[in-house]
């Protein structure tokens, strides 16, 4: 009986590890607008303590759930934060709000503003508002990389509403999530399948992943149980 309970503990441990990995995966499963290539463009847009700005942007897909920004190191630290809001095109009605955070695998100081899904976002223009604040006064600024904006409508506007940034917009992109897990996995499959031979595409890819996971899980269970 004691031996059986040891096996039970190991099975639960394996299950916890498995669930933890896939929980994280499903949390990460959202799709940045890959048509936007983020660039470390100059000049930097600097945000002082207590300062704010707005910028219009358009979502290319439905179910907008995140914005990603490229910042110059360091980004906001423990005692400072960049508070962000998404409002409608008139910048009047706030739709979502939250804080800018470092992305999961912080490659190249990518930061993200994550929020609850905005359905029917495709083709709509939104207003991003951001304000930088510190708990203690400090002259250090948060610096965003910028990109040239073709349309002055999408340029950064300072808190007084003036556009002093010469047609620059933040180096940022929108991220969306599909309606269901199946659709999300379908979209991921589409992305992985691109530039692959037929035997690594679509149904073949599903079959490969299924066989890999089925064999791995069975293997661990059998080795614990026997």
């Amino acid at each position, binding site marked *: 009986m004691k031996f059986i309970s040891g096996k039970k503990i190991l099975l639960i441990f394996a299950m916890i590890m498995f669930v933890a990995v896939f929980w994280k*995966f499903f949390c990460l499963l959202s799709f940045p607008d890959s048509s936007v290539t983020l660039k470390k463009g100059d000049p930097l847009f600097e945000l002082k303590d207590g300062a704010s700005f707005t910028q219009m942007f358009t979502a290319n897909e439905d179910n907008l759930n995140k914005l990603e920004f490229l910042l110059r190191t360091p980004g906001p630290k423990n005692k400072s934060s960049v508070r962000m809001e998404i409002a409608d095109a008139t910048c009047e009605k706030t739709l979502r709000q939250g804080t800018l955070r470092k992305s999961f695998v912080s490659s190249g100081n990518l930061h993200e503003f994550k929020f609850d899904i905005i359905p029917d976002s495709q083709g709509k223009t939104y207003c991003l508002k951001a304000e930088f604040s510190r708990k203690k006064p400090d002259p250090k600024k948060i610096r965003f990389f910028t990109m040239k904006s073709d349309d002055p409508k999408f340029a950064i506007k300072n808190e007084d509403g003036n556009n002093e940034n010469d047609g620059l917009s933040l180096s940022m992109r929108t991220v969306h999530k599909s309606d269901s897990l199946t659709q999300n996995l379908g979209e991921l499959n589409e992305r992985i399948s691109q*530039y692959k031979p037929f035997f690594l595409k679509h149904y073949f890819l599903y079959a490969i992943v299924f066989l*890999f996971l089925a064999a791995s899980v069975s293997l661990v269970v059998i080795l614990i149980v026997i």
Partner: protein
Amino acid sequence: MHYNALLAKIQSLTFCKKPAFILFLILCAFFFKGVFLTSLFPIFAGQDETKHFNSVTFLAEPRPITWHIKSNVKKDAEGMQKGNYTEEILETSKAVNFDEEIKGELYNTLSFNDGFYGKNEAEINENKWKQYNENYPVNRADISLYHKLAAKITKTFSSQDLLFRYFLVRIFSVFLGTLTVLFSYLIAKNVGFSSKASLLTAAIVAFQPRFSIYTAAINYDILLILLFTSFTLGSILALKNGLNWKNFSLMAVSVYLGIQTKPTASVLLVVFASLMAYFAYRKIGIEKRKTKLLFISAIILVITALGAYFKKYIPATFLDLNSTIPSIGKYLSDSITPGKLGLSARTYWGTLTWVDSWSLDNITNFISKIESFAILGIILFLLPSKYHNKIISAIRRLYLHLKTKCTKKNSGQTKETAISDMGKWHNFLPEKKYVLFFILMIIALQLGIRFADWRAHGELGTPGRYFLPNIAAHIILVFTGIGALLRKEKYFEKSLIIGLILMMAFMLYIIFDVIIYRYYL
């Protein structure tokens, strides 16, 4: 279904308990994981993959050359376009926007299309570009056995487009990795691990992240890893059963093919010669003066032959001790630092240098801590019995103290039987000779790699992947050390199961939360 019912169901399936079935499951899990990994890494994204694929293409070209060759081509271009590759490789890299989107900044991905086909995939599928090299010197790796075998595959499928051939060669690498896992099982089984412990060892090897990632790419190191493992198997069989033509052939063929694959395998010559000397010593004995002289002469002859062989790798100024000794000193002080050793260890286990991940660094640091315990266990395991007994006695006293405390309620077992349990710890661990052999293999590879790095003035570096050829020996050593500390087969098997769960979780984490996130999200 209730847990106990599920357990009973699994245990009633007798085929599930058969080692052959479980081994098949391990090989399947490794193979399909590998194929999945080949699909996750975009084309040309692996370590030096383009160079290796171009070597394969070079060998698959029609002979004699009937096209115009442009010599000394130096291009005024950036990234991939700068290299002298085939038109097909260069045009494909343009079509997938390799330099901008794949090799570019880590936060950018390919510009994806809707559906299962990339924006310019149809152009690649037309298979209209030249599959041969026109610009010389060709940008390729040293031709090796791996490239020759892969060239046979690409030649067979030359009518297919580059995507088909490229990913097929990656799958060929996965197949070689699968054989490595199989040999790892056989090594563990033959050093004296139980059937279950051997299966667990092979499964841990199969889920080692760096090994898994590496075997999903186009690189001659994958065949080198396989041949190191087959050499280790041959040696273990020779140490176990005595030298016979089967294990001698396995060792000799592995050394020969290894050298045909990569010069690193030359270190196997030294190990091979040492083993032969050991077997000769055991066979003939050297009590008689005449035999002793004959034996020493043979050793001198072998060392001279090895010296002549290795001469090509030794710099001409090597004997000038005034420059060589300071140079070695400088190399050691620059490269044997905690930071560089730590980086080698972390990248060996699976840290990806192209992401800044707190989790990856800390998981690999945790593995290093476990390795430190394992080293302690190995030292304990190898200690001569006179020191050993003192340490064992101390551990026994501690063990009995704890055991008496823990089993007050169930005190059927006397102190004497507890001590007798402790004495059985050698039954489930390998004999010392195997452990010493694994250590010899690890030292030989370390010396070989560090010598090559010193020769190249530290330009090669010592990334963890260079040490993968000893992966089976390494995993067995780690768990032997842990087993020596745990001292009971039941706990030893449990440690292997926990090792497998952690290794699998780490691998899944790297696949689903790091690689997919990097390239597709």
